[in-house]
């Protein structure tokens, strides 16, 4: 019986020791420490850019069409020489995602023909007001220095894209996510 007691105490002391030296923890000291997410994690949406700063989104509304919870609303507008926002003739003037409606299924990411919207790694979705849950375009856009790819490689007038050029143009979205 004493043996059992000692065994139990030893286990408790072992875990206590581990806890003190920080070994084998399953919890983190959030928010100081943040958990790294796997590449396939579907977190908060991001709108990506090209290397030169242009937005990838052309406002085609396919994400809105595919969204099962109708969380995406967008209105498009036309690029002008003075105001070149995206790589095509069209860009999303208003791009909103209602995060309370969103079920994070990732369909928008799959539907996107321009690799513009991706599900990011951020899982911090607490807000103070309900209106804050409507993510505007500026809330989701990547900073310009995070852009990748060259829109010329997406020129619709060049139809032949080899597998090599295709890969380099699209980059590796998973790799980008790991940087986040």
């Amino acid at each position, binding site marked *: 019986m004493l043996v059992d007691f000692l065994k139990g105490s030893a286990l408790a002391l072992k875990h206590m020791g581990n806890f003190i030296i920080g070994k084998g923890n399953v919890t983190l000291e959030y928010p100081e420490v943040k958990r790294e997410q796997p590449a396939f994690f579907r977190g908060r949406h991001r709108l990506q850019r090209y290397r030169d700063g*242009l937005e990838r989104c052309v406002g085609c509304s396919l994400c809105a069409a595919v969204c099962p919870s109708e969380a995406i609303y967008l209105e498009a507008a036309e*690029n002008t020489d003075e105001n070149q926002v995206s790589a*095509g003739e069209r860009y999303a003037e208003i791009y909103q995602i209602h995060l309370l409606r969103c079920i994070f299924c990732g369909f928008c990411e799959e539907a996107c023909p321009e690799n513009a919207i991706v599900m990011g790694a951020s899982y911090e979705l607490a807000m103070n007001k309900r209106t804050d849950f409507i993510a505007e375009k500026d809330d989701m856009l990547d900073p310009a220095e995070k852009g990748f790819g060259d829109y010329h490689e997406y020129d619709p007038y060049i139809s032949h894209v080899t597998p090599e050029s295709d890969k380099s143009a699209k980059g590796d979205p998973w790799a980008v996510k790991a940087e986040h």
Partner: protein
Amino acid sequence: MTVSTLPDLPALAEFERVFLPNIEEDKTETLEEYLKVGGYEAVKIALAKKPEEITEIIKDSGLRGRGGAGFPTGMKWSFLPKGAHPRYLTINADESEPGTCKDRPLMEQRPHTLIEGIICSCIAIESEKAFIYIRGEYYKSAKVMQDAVDEAYAAGILGDNVMGSGKRVDVVVHRGAGAYICGEETALLTSLEGYRGYPKLKPPFPAIKGLYDKPTIINNVETIVSVGWILKKGADWFKKFTHERSTGQRLLCVSGHVKKPGVYELPMTLTLREIIYDVCGGMRNDHDLKFIIPGGSSVPWVLPEHLDATWSMEGLAAVGSSLGSAGMMVMDHTVCPVWALANLSAFYRHESCGQCTPCREGSAWLQKIVMRIERGEGEEGDLETLRAIAGTGPNTGMICGKSICALGDAAAWPVSSALNCFWDDFEEHIKTKGCKYKNKRYWMQDDRFVNETYEHKPSWGHH
């Protein structure tokens, strides 16, 4: 422009040149000169006959169209609906087929033979009005023809009382604007009507519904000239030199790497070997023959192994080619077939009217690929793509037989035949990214075809 003399060949012993005999000596440009050598005799003969009799004579003579398709002329005339008037005769003098230059000497040096043929044909088809549609670049031809027509009117040969017979024949000389497509018969008609030179949908054929929606016969200059000579000399004379169903003589235009290129009047009984080595004096610098394009740029190519084929419609059809408009281009061994094809494809791309999809897009696509191979930028699979577009022969591939008019076929045939003949050369171009033929002139550039509406930068370029 001279018409070359013929050598003394046994096969030509009894052959008589009539279209352009001894052009230097016999000046027959004016009516006076032409009447001296028996001009307008054919009209008198025609006026004495009934229209059906003339058509029968032409049918009997076996005359086939000289423009390229080789359709029997008498049969074409008999397609006219009975009793439908007015009807028109239109002379296709829009001689634009590369390598062909036979109508030009006929019009410039003996214009009255054409007028004579027109009057005979008009009597035969009971038409009172004929149009001569002359290629835009043929300024002199048009001028000479117009002068001749004016002369004929003044002499009472044309007009409301043709040579005192009471019949009426009017001739209008019209200059085109220099588009190859307007040599296609229905495009010629739309152009003549004052519209964009687009080929019309067939059926209805022009013999039923042609110029201004009226029955119309369209014949080549040489065909109509032949009509006059057949009436003058008889159908049997015309049939004296005959190979299968190819009767009579016709003008052969030889260009390329022979010692004596030129326009020859020949019966269709000689072999290609006789023509190149006897009539034209052999290859230049005694080079090897590489290939022949025997009937204007759109017909399939002929290799040296077929040199013994007879130069006639049937003879060339037997070796997979066509007599076409009898514009023979001869190439020696210094010619890169890819370069030659790129040249031809560029021509067809430039001359496609753009009306129907397969020809508009196909001719340009073919040209882009061939030009790329020629530049040494060919890729694996290009030849298969060319094959798929151009096909392997008539009515195969994506263009042949699917376009409104024959220009689509004409753009595809050289490609398919070049691939048939010189597949290895094309493969070598792609594999070695270059060309082993040294003496090429790189005058062909893509931007030769660039339209001013093209934009060379991406339209949303922000740089």
